[in-house]
């Protein structure tokens, strides 16, 4: 039954999303009997996979958390439509003093790294 694993499915801790939801939902579908509703696994919904983006939840680290916080910070303006580095540089030129470590982190990433784009890139 799905209810036994509801807590696992909606596992959302402050400071990090659960590391391996894929394995837990696989376990869930194994246990389901005829007549139960299988909730779709978050990592494999077609909409997310269609863009071919790497599932961020696998490599969720401290840096990611900082970058997401940077995206969500309303002081620096909307995050959709700009790359993170552009938004950081815009915040610098507007005199908003964004944390320099974010700028260093973004500049150190290779150009194809998905962390360069904002959280909602390709998803909205």
């Amino acid at each position, binding site marked *: 039954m799905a209810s036994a694993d509801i807590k696992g499915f909606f596992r959302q801790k402050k400071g990090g999303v659960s590391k391996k939801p894929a394995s837990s939902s696989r376990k869930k579908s194994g246990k389901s009997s005829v007549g139960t509703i299988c909730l779709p696994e978050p990592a494999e919904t077609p909409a997310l996979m269609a863009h071919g983006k790497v599932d961020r939840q696998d490599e969720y680290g401290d840096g990611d958390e900082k970058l997401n916080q940077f995206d969500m910070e*309303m*002081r620096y*303006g*909307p995050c*959709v*439509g*700009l*790359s993170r580095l*552009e938004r950081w540089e*815009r915040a610098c*030129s*507007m005199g908003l003093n964004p944390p320099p470590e974010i700028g260093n982190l973004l500049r150190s990433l290779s150009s194809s790294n998905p962390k360069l784009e904002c959280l909602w890139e390709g998803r909205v």
Partner: protein
Amino acid sequence: MDGATIEDGEMKLFERKQAIYKSLDEKYLVHGQRYKGQQYSQIYFARLHHLRNLLHSLVTKWKPHLEVITVLGLEESRECVIVGTIYKHMKLKPCILDEYSKERTAVPLVKPHNFLHPDDQLILEDEIGRVKLRGSLLNPTDFVTGIGLALHGMKTIEGDFLVQDLLEAGFPPQTKLPRLGEDKYVVFVSGLNVGSNIFNPLQFQLFVDHVTGHLGGDNEQKMTSQIVRVVIAGNSVIIPHSVLNGQALTPEDQRKLTEPIKEVDILLTQLAAAVPLDIMPGPTDPANSFLPQQPLHRCLFPGASSYNTFFSCTNPHQFELDGFQFLGTSGQNIDDLDKYSSAQTKLEFVERTLRWRHLAPTAPNTLGCYPFTEKDPFFIENCPNVYFVGNQDKYETVLLHGPEEQQVRLVCIPRFSESGVAVMLNLRDLNCHALNFSADLDS
């Protein structure tokens, strides 16, 4: 520019005066921008950022005893100041969703002129939230969406904000007005509308001949030799609508499409040969439709663009002439204000944009605009000496004096095809007068 006096047979040669020109259109150019899929939230953020910094510094002098807080920090019955962008909720504003509405209510007939309604409401928005504005101080007919304001008031029990006082950004600072010892004139004209059935070629030819010095006696020629620049503020060409129905063009239609611009080129070649010329695109010209309109391409003017006196400019257009600052548009910003707010005269709208420090506050809400991410180019940083608006109904002008000794000449340039009026501005004293051209052979 020769002139001959009949009495003594001497040829008097008048030399045209020169003025140092510097174009400041850099910030209106779009070619360096890359569209990354952004939406208009970015340009609103840039606008709020600039206006908020400005207003914060003004608020400390305006209400030093009050605190500036964000919309979400409002507490009931606590006087405070909030800063944000105005949003005007308008009942009659055309909305694309109305077409899909299933209910066929008895919608009041939309007035073609403007969309004002007594039930319009003002809302203040900052990055985090919005609050409805109440109070008799703010009359919604005077405001439009997109203005940055600071408001003093308090939150009411219903959750609205009761406005007790308001602060606009005010006139921008102005660099000291240069002193000119001699008369130098700038001629403004707009709305030639070549290609429409109201265009009278003789009338504009008269204008060209006058400005190039082919007409009149010594006095007139002396005066026209003092014209240092001609500025054409938009709508030089109008494409007949019968051609724009989406069907393939017959050779006859193609000629209808290209004839007007060729005619304009012939006329502009004559002008450019004699006097430095600025041409701005307008709503009916073959340029992009959203603001800032990019300069009309050189290939449209094969004759005129071969002269180095020919300048194709953006709309809005900003330039410096002998140290005088000029700023102007082809009229879209003021016409849009006219649809969503009301005033006694068009000049009042122009003055309001200067007090709000923003050329086109309704962009991008109801006026098409490029989605800039890093800046809002319509923000007026420095007060111009001359602020002109083209394609208006009639010629109007006023000299405004700002609180910090700014002096601005506001000019509304009428449509030449309808009125035959061009405007002549004297740089020495910022006085303006109208040039009337009539080619009516019947009168």
